[in-house]
């Protein structure tokens, strides 16, 4: 009979030992991997399929010990004990151990082995250990630990089959808890406390494990003690302290525990580990001497960041133009297929202008994440955290806050969630509060749109492109405002001591193409998905608000104006619709075609001689002579009449276009969006905004990128499309209500405003209170308003 067994196995280890990489290799999942610690802050579930067996694999957050001081460490313990929400109690454990730091990694292993679960020790980074002259006798290590040991290389898929087989076998054999040589008083203290915990087990709703009593005895703090106090009252804590006093014998309990553990590890290492002394420094040491240097390291950091922002401009342009023309062609196709009316407007002005306007920024998002993925994979981010630690300590934060804040540059949500690795509550809350100040990727389209419009494509000092420099500066706006905010919080309501930051420096690695491509695929996919879901839905709603009520009165008013205009011209002029693709049939068509060809030639020349004014002038003069000659060649009996008709046609189309523009503008101003916009206009006027920008900013509160789509919709609806309508960038630069001061004011507002409902929701969950998200929203929005006001007024006064 064929039966499928089902087991649950926990994957645990120190941070940055390659757990997520192993998890992905075993389960085929696509969890984010980076060459720095603290990436996994929640337990993740994946399925490993073996013959007749399915294993639910739980990837627990990386932790150095099971002392549950920070929330992510508690997640690790709960996962190990089967108390994590929706996860079964593990039948076995995979302990992931970095072979190049074996002694330190085994500290956690001794704690896990005390639980007595069937365990396999997985050695990773064996190649790095070998490079450092470390060799490990796995048989001896296995015999010493009483657990099987397998060395793997997850990225290359080496030994994964052996690991699967070993795990399969281990799960079917019972295991004994590891016994460490603790002093007698200490051991008695653990037993006594264990009895007390069992007594309150009914009230707790579960039977505590013996190693938990050891943890409670040593740590005497954390969420587990709070839970015990809650069910057993303060008497429990009083008794705990009595037991601690007896168990310690006047010494530090933490010291007793670590002495026993490291003593045992030392004995194991004598049996199983050999180290050859290698002369000189490793390549990683040599590179670190520069990259973590106070001066050179900081310089490299600034240069690397500068290069990223320059590349975003230098490389994205051609790709953006391709996407832009694609959406333009799609709009034309739909426009020519559907009859004029609300459905055509919904598709062309709402969906294509709204979603397309946002999607053209995909290349820039991909370039940003390409660099982030490369830097993460090389191992540079830990060095950046090291450099920032010194700076952050001045503002009362530790380097531990750096990784969450750095993650926030991609998206504020993982930044807020990543703050779980911070033990100190006040520092954690400060970090959560600061995360939305970091410029997430959703702000990138806003910056690049307005920079492309208002910042000239010039070079500073002859070689630094100004646009990239301004983009770099925009990313610093949030940081500059976060610093005083951190100072006020850490010296005021969230005062706490700066705890020392210990962070492992991973060795440098060549970036793995698969990892980098995975990041690009995930990030690019998320951006496209977001554009295709929430931004699409919001664009439709914004279009509806900007299109309706679409009153008949306005229609009739402009129809009458158009009729009056048509009456002024002869039918041949009004009905003339030149088709420049077809062969001209009469003099009027020939004259119109000659003019159209001339205009196309001028546009081409302008592009060709964009940087040489003299050459352009000469070329234009030549083209004009060619036009005169072409018109001379067309001279015939009816030439004068046809010329007159052509002039009249130009005049008529210009006037008709003005009427259509007025009609579109009038509809927009009288739409629901227009009426609301006019009502809020006095509040946004001081920022240099008109009602359209005000409404676009309000529509962006659920998600920032919506401003780009909303402006696209407003401009499409607010003006009749003609052959001169350009991209959103061109439309904004031609609009008189926008100036450099307005552009700067919008960018500063978006850099500082808390416009992301999902971030605020996660903030509520992480702090367990609405107080923090509401405070963050009110504070950041007020700050954004004031900063945008000052920016506009100053820039305006300076002539911007």
């Amino acid at each position: 009979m064929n039966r499928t067994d089902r087991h649950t196995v926990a994957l645990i280890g120190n941070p940055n030992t390659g757990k997520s990489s192993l998890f992905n290799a075993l389960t085929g999942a696509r969890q984010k991997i980076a060459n720095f610690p603290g990436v996994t802050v929640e337990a993740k579930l994946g399925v490993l399929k073996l013959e007749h067996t399915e294993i639910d694999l739980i990837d627990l957050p990386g932790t150095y010990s099971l002392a549950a001081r920070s929330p992510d460490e508690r997640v690790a313990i709960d996962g190990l004990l089967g108390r994590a929400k929706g996860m079964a109690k593990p039948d076995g454990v995979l302990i992931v151990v970095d072979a190049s730091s074996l002694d330190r990694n085994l500290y956690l292993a001794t704690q896990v082995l005390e639980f007595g679960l069937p365990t396999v020790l997985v050695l990773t980074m064996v190649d790095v250990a070998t490079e450092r002259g470390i060799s490990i006798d796995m048989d001896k290590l296995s015999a010493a630990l009483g657990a099987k040991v397998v060395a793997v290389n997850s990225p290359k898929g080496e030994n994964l089959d052996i690991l699967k087989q070993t795990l399969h076998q281990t799960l079917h054999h019972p295991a004994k808890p590891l016994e460490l040589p603790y002093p007698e008083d200490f051991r008695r203290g653990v037993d006594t406390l264990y009895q007390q915990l069992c007594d309150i087990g009914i009230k707790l709703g579960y039977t505590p494990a013996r190693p938990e009593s050891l943890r409670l005895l040593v740590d005497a703090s954390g969420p587990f003690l709070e839970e015990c106090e809650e069910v057993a009252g303060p008497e429990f804590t009083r008794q705990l302290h009595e037991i601690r006093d007896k168990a310690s014998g006047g010494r530090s309990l933490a010291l007793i525990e670590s002495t026993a553990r490291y003593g045992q590890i030392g004995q194991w290492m004598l049996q199983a580990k050999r180290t050859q002394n290698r002369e000189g420094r490793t390549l990683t040491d040599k590179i670190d001497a520069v990259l973590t240097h106070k001066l050179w390291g900081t310089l490299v950091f600034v240069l690397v960041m500068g290069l990223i922002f320059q590349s975003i401009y230098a490389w994205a342009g051609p790709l953006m133009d391709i996407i832009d023309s694609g959406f333009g062609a799609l709009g034309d196709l739909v426009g020519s297929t559907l009859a004029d009316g609300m459905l055509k407007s919904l598709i062309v002005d709402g969906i294509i202008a709204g979603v397309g306007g946002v999607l053209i920024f995909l290349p820039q998002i991909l370039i940003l994440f390409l660099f982030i993925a490369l830097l993460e994979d090389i191992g540079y981010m830990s060095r950046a955290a090291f450099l920032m630690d010194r700076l952050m300590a001045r503002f009362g934060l530790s380097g531990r806050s750096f990784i969450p804040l750095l993650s926030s540059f991609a998206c504020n949500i993982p930044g807020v969630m990543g703050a779980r690795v911070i033990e100190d509550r006040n520092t954690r809350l400060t970090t959560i509060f600061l995360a939305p100040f970091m410029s997430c990727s959703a702000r990138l389209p806003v910056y690049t749109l307005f920079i492309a419009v208002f910042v000239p494509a010039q070079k500073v000092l002859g070689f630094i492109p100004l646009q990239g420099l301004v983009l770099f500066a925009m990313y610093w706006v949030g940081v500059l405002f976060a610093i005083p905010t951190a100072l006020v919080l850490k010296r005021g309501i969230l005062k706490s001591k700066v705890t020392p930051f210990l962070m492992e420096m991973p060795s440098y690695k060549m970036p793995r193409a698969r990892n980098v491509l995975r990041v690009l695929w995930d990030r690019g996919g998320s951006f496209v998905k977001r554009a295709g879901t929430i931004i699409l839905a919001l664009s439709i709603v914004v279009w509806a608000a900007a299109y309706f009520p679409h009153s008949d009165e306005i229609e009739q008013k402009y129809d009458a104006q158009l009729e009056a205009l048509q009456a002024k011209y002869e039918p041949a002029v009004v009905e003339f619709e030149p088709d420049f693709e077809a062969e001209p049939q009469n003099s009027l068509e020939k004259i119109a075609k000659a003019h159209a060809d001339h205009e196309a030639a001028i546009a081409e020349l302008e592009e060709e001689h964009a940087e040489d004014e003299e050459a352009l002038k000469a070329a234009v003069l030549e083209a004009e002579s060619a036009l005169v000659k072409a018109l001379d060649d067309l001279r015939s009996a009816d030439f004068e009449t046809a010329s007159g008709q052509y002039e009249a046609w130009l005049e008529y189309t210009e006037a008709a276009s003005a009427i259509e523009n007025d009609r579109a503008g009038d509809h927009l101003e009288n739409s629901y969006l227009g009426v609301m916009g006019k009502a809020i206009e006095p509040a946004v006027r001081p920022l240099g905004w008109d009602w359209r920008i005000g409404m676009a900013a309000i529509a962006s509160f659920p998600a920032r990128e919506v401003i780009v789509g909303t402006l696209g919709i407003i401009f499409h609806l607010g003006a009749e499309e003609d052959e001169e309508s350009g991209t959103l960038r061109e439309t904004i630069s031609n609009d008189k209500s926008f100036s450099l001061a307005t552009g700067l004011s919008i960018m500063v507002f978006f850099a500082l405003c808390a416009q992301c409902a999902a971030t605020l929701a996660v903030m509520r969950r992480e702090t367990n209170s609405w107080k923090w998200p509401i405070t963050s929203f009110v504070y950041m929005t007020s700050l954004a308003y004031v900063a945008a006001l000052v920016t506009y007024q100053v820039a305006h006064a300076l002539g911007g």
Partner: protein
Amino acid sequence: MLIEVAITAAVITAAVGFISWRVWQTLRVSKGKQACGGCGACPAKTAKP
């Protein structure tokens, strides 16, 4: 004309419905009933086999 109005109304209703659903999801996240905001701005938090 009637079909045009019906299609437009259906699209707008679907968009409003989708936004309402997302608001509800976001509130569930805030109460801890869901792992991730699902804003789509970062890769999925729960790995699937």
